[in-house]
């Protein structure tokens, strides 16, 4: 009976927290959706209306017709997917290498990886541009992709170091005794256990790259190479904010992220036992 009651309390707490959290999240988000369905004059109506008097999909049409969001999406998808894939892969290598071996310079290396996150990015705009210019990669998707990898790799590497740490070393050792090579021990034994970490790092990298604005804006001069976040930010004009268009494009731009999240979350929500190691 005690157990039942604590289960009840647990239920109330869980759903209570989720519900309150959801309300706080949904009010602004639904307001975005509502704004995106309004005509321009109605975005300024007083008092503000949740349900627009005239519901229109004009803004959703405009982003494809009046603004080149088709290009923006193509570019964002290419750059983000490539950057996420590469960033997460090389971070896994790093995580494994750092936790499974002792080697000279390990601590300095880890420190160095983190250092790159600590300089205010405003002051990095100019030198980043110069570096890419030296490589001839300005105004290319490859250049932007590389920059994004350099942004996401520090966090992903450190996360993967953390996750690999939770896997007992005995597992690799046993595998190697059984005749696996080092690489096989990594890919077949250890990596599958840290899949939750891989997917949460991937989500982080995905969100970071998709929403990055400052560097995409600086590095991509060509209208056809701009990314979604730049396209969205340009709707926040200096003289005028295109509220409905801005919200419509933000809502649409978040859809790939939502899909990505739903797809990736199943890898780290397998219930408590799925990924756990019994040691």
């Amino acid at each position, binding site marked *: 009976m005690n157990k039942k009651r604590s289960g009840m309390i647990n239920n109330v707490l869980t759903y209570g927290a989720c519900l309150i959290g*959801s309300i706080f999240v949904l009010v602004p988000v639904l307001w975005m959706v509502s704004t995106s369905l309004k005509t321009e004059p109605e975005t300024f109506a007083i008092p503000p209306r949740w349900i627009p008097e005239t519901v229109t999909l004009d803004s959703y049409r405009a982003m494809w017709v009046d603004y080149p969001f088709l290009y923006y999406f193509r570019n964002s998808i290419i750059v983000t997917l490539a950057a996420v894939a590469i960033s997460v892969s090389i971070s896994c290598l790093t995580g494994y290498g750092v936790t*499974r071996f002792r080697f000279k310079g390990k601590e300095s290396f880890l420190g160095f990886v983190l250092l790159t996150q600590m*300089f205010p990015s405003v002051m990095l705009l100019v030198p980043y541009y110069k570096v890419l210019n030296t490589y001839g990669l300005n105004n290319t998707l490859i250049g932007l992709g590389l920059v994004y990898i*350099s942004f996401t790799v520090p*966090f992903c590497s450190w996360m993967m170091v953390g996750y690999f740490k939770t896997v007992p070393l005995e597992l690799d050792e046993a595998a190697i005794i059984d005749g696996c090579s080092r690489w096989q021990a990594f890919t077949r034994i250890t990596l599958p256990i840290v899949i939750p970490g891989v997917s*949460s790092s991937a989500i*982080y990298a995905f*969100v970071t790259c998709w929403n990055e604005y400052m560097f995409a804006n600086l590095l991509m001069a060509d209208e056809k190479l701009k990314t979604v976040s730049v396209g969205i930010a340009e709707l926040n004009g200096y003289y005028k904010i295109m509220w409905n268009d801005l919200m419509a494009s933000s809502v649409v731009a978040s859809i790939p992220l939502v899909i990505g999240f739903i797809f990736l979350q199943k890898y780290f*929500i397998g219930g408590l036992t799925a990924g756990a190691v019994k040691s």
Partner: protein
Amino acid sequence: MKTKSHKQEQFQPSKMSLSELTPYLFIFPVLLLLVMLVVYPLSYGVYISFFDTDLGKNWSFAGFRNYLVIFTQDNFLKNIWVTFKFAFLVVAGHFVIGILLGLALNQKKRGTTVFRTILVLPWLFPDVVIALIFKWLANPMYGLFNSFLLEHGLIEKQISWLGSTQWAFAVVVLVCIWKGYPMVLVNVLAALQSVSSDILEAARVDGANAVQLLFRIILPAIKPVLATTVILDVVWWFKHYTIVELLTSGGPNSVTSIVSIGIYKEAFQYFKFGRAAAMAVVVFVICYLISKVFRKVLSDDE
């Protein structure tokens, strides 16, 4: 742990030289990329802090003058202090909310998938959009916040949330918590997967209550992952710019003037790049020290 890897080396004495190289092969891609892309920008940032320059043709050596100037301005020191408060509160908020919701959502219950997706939404929108939305929701004249509070008689007259020294800082912090907690939530959820349910069950049988479970078993188990998250979360929000700039531009009466706004003004409004770089270097050093402290405190005690 250390003795174990020694043992492991003993397994293949013949491959000694290769196995010495192996770890470097694993870290090589990351190292190469960062050296190629990041070393120069960081060095450049430090380099220009010793010059008065327009970053074009005019460079004149300034020695430590830029540092001297920023430390004698009370504005800069005040901004640093505001930034400390800001980053601390924002990160604390992220972790309290992120961990609580993470624990709640880690259960196999009806509807948790839907809640998970909803609760992660704030993370998925660009900073610009979040800032603009909240700026209008908090608008004193016809923002939803005021109209809701007025309607229900909770306040008597309109409150200028972002315009009064009393509220602005708190509102800015809340918006930044709102935006950033899902990152912690997602990482907590992922980290919780490595907590063995056997250990939890065993502890429960031993009569541990929920709070004990949390502090004795769960948090220590996810510490390696949380340590990284906390370090970088602090560093990121210490350097944050966009949301605060769009919400208040550092006002009213500088209560929200975090240091990045000052750096941006110094660089791209006043065009004093040397001085801006000096500020950036100071921020860099502070972030470095913060991370050092956290790494010390959170390091494995094995």
